[in-house]
């Protein structure tokens, strides 16, 4: 049993972490909300005035806002779909008996450790470049016209790059979960005549549901904030074709110095993340309790 004394010291040990995280959350959050109601431009210091909801009106009615929201959500949906479906398939394959499984694992997990700026630039220059890229060389060798991925289908290209970074993560986690599945259960089902599809659908998939939830949750946290990949490949363009909410706020506040409108965007981003978070935490909570 813990004594009163140890309870007190435990509270003391916990407090620095709690206070720091509290400060890290509350102070900037309050400031963002405060700035969002001000007319505040970094180029005109000292002229901040209260403007009510003007910044929100300005930010939401800006045509690029709609594009940014659509892009943010299509990136989230697209990458989640590719990585979860791909991850399940890859995990199923890697779980089979084979030679050199350790080496395959190492190759598959590698992209996850590559920093975002490197993977984006490598795909942009070495692969998708319409003159010198690997894809262009292959197209020419096959007698086809090289395709300029980043100007023809820019957002799909970025979804592809981000998926490449996250597919290893999904595969690794789903593989780990799959390996903890009781083999005898599978064999029993097989002896009872369950087809492969039935075994997958009724035994493996339910077993993986918790891991899938975790993959979706964690990737969502990171995918809503994709930034570096856009910065080094397309700078949000052409037009707003590759601008997501994170990038739009960055442009608004740090490139156009409009702190007020940028902060209004920040508040919207926080609300969006919270909607997704509540939804996901409920899902993960259900799964974790089970």
């Amino acid at each position, binding site marked *: 049993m*813990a004594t009163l004394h140890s309870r007190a*010291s*435990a*509270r003391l*040990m*916990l407090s*620095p*972490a*709690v206070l*720091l*995280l509290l400060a*890290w959350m509350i102070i*900037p*959050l309050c*400031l*963002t909300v405060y*700035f969002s109601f001000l007319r505040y431009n970094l180029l005109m210091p000292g002229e901040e005035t209260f403007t009510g909801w003007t910044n929100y009106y300005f930010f939401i009615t800006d045509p690029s806002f709609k594009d940014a929201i659509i892009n943010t959500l299509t990136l989230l949906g697209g990458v989640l779909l590719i990585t979860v479906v791909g991850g399940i398939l890859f995990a199923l*394959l*890697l779980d*089979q008996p*084979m*030679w050199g499984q350790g*080496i*395959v*694992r190492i190759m*598959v*997990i*590698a992209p996850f*450790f590559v*920093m975002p*700026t490197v*993977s984006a*630039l*490598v*795909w942009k220059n*070495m692969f998708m470049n319409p003159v*010198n890229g690997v894809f262009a*060389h292959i197209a020419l*060798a096959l007698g086809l016209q090289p395709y300029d991925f980043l100007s023809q289908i820019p957002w799909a290209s970025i979804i592809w790059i981000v998926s*490449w970074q996250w*597919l290893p*993560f999904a595969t690794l986690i789903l593989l*780990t979960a799959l390996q*903890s599945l009781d083999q005898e259960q599978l*064999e029993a089902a097989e002896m009872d005549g369950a087809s492969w599809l039935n075994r997958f659908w009724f035994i493996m998939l339910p077993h993986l549901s*918790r*891991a899938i939830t975790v993959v979706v949750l964690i990737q969502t*946290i990171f995918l809503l904030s994709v*930034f*570096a990949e856009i910065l*080094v490949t397309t700078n949000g363009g052409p037009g707003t074709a590759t601008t997501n909410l994170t990038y739009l*706020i960055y442009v608004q506040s740090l490139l156009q110095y409009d702190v007020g409108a940028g*902060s209004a965007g*920040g508040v919207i*981003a*926080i609300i969006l*993340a919270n909607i997704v*978070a509540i939804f996901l*935490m409920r899902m993960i909570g259900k799964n*974790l309790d089970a």
Partner: protein
Amino acid sequence: MARAISTKRKAINTVAAWSLGFLIFFPILWIAILSFKTEIDAIKGPLDVLSAIWTTESYSAVQERSDYLKHFTNSVIIALGSTLLGLIIAVPAAWAMAFVPARRTKDVLMWMLSTKMLPPVGVLIPIYLIFRDTGLLDTRIGLVLVLMLINLPIIIWMLYTYFREIPGEILEAARMDGASLGKEVLYILTPMAIPGMASTVLLNIILAWNEAFWTLNLTAAKAAPLTAFIASYSSPEGLFYAKLSAASIMAIAPILIMGWFSQKQLVRGLTFGAVK
């Protein structure tokens, strides 16, 4: 009972898995190859690249741009500094929650997890302005602080799951024998917790090394780590394939190697202990 798997089936699995692994790994392999070619050869077709001469000139060229070493040093200091600072704050917190659980411990843990949900862009402006006014902008200490804070929930969660596995009875026994709190931590807890702490450190270094939102937005020339150094190749230097490849390999190699060694722990850390 393990079933006998036919050799043929195993061979098919092996070929399929290796092809897949190769495809996913190919971009990294490709820049590793390009980094050892001349600029003129590096932009040729894949087959011409492979047959071209090998050289290390790109590596010396990147090194000679004296700033590579500076950025590398910045990366090391930021990654190690934020990890160490995070550990100092997280170890007592995780210890307290694991060994003296209170009614609200689970809520505290969930709350810490929820702070990770705060999108960085939502607090970018205040942090940027605070840093500007306090002179922390473009300093290593500023980045150490921010990266420590964004990774703190992960460190605490990970340590918590490791500490939970240490049987509490051992600590009770020590306490009965009259061990003080300090001795308890030093002689009993530390040796048992070292493997878990090592994996936590490893994961945190990886995350801090690759972090590319705050490092790009809060640094300019002085404190920029490798993420920002590579971003400076986005144009037009990115067209120098061999140099970009060499710089990229030098930026990712340390973490790639560390990552390969910590795959298992990585799963646990990134899933907040939910998948082991």
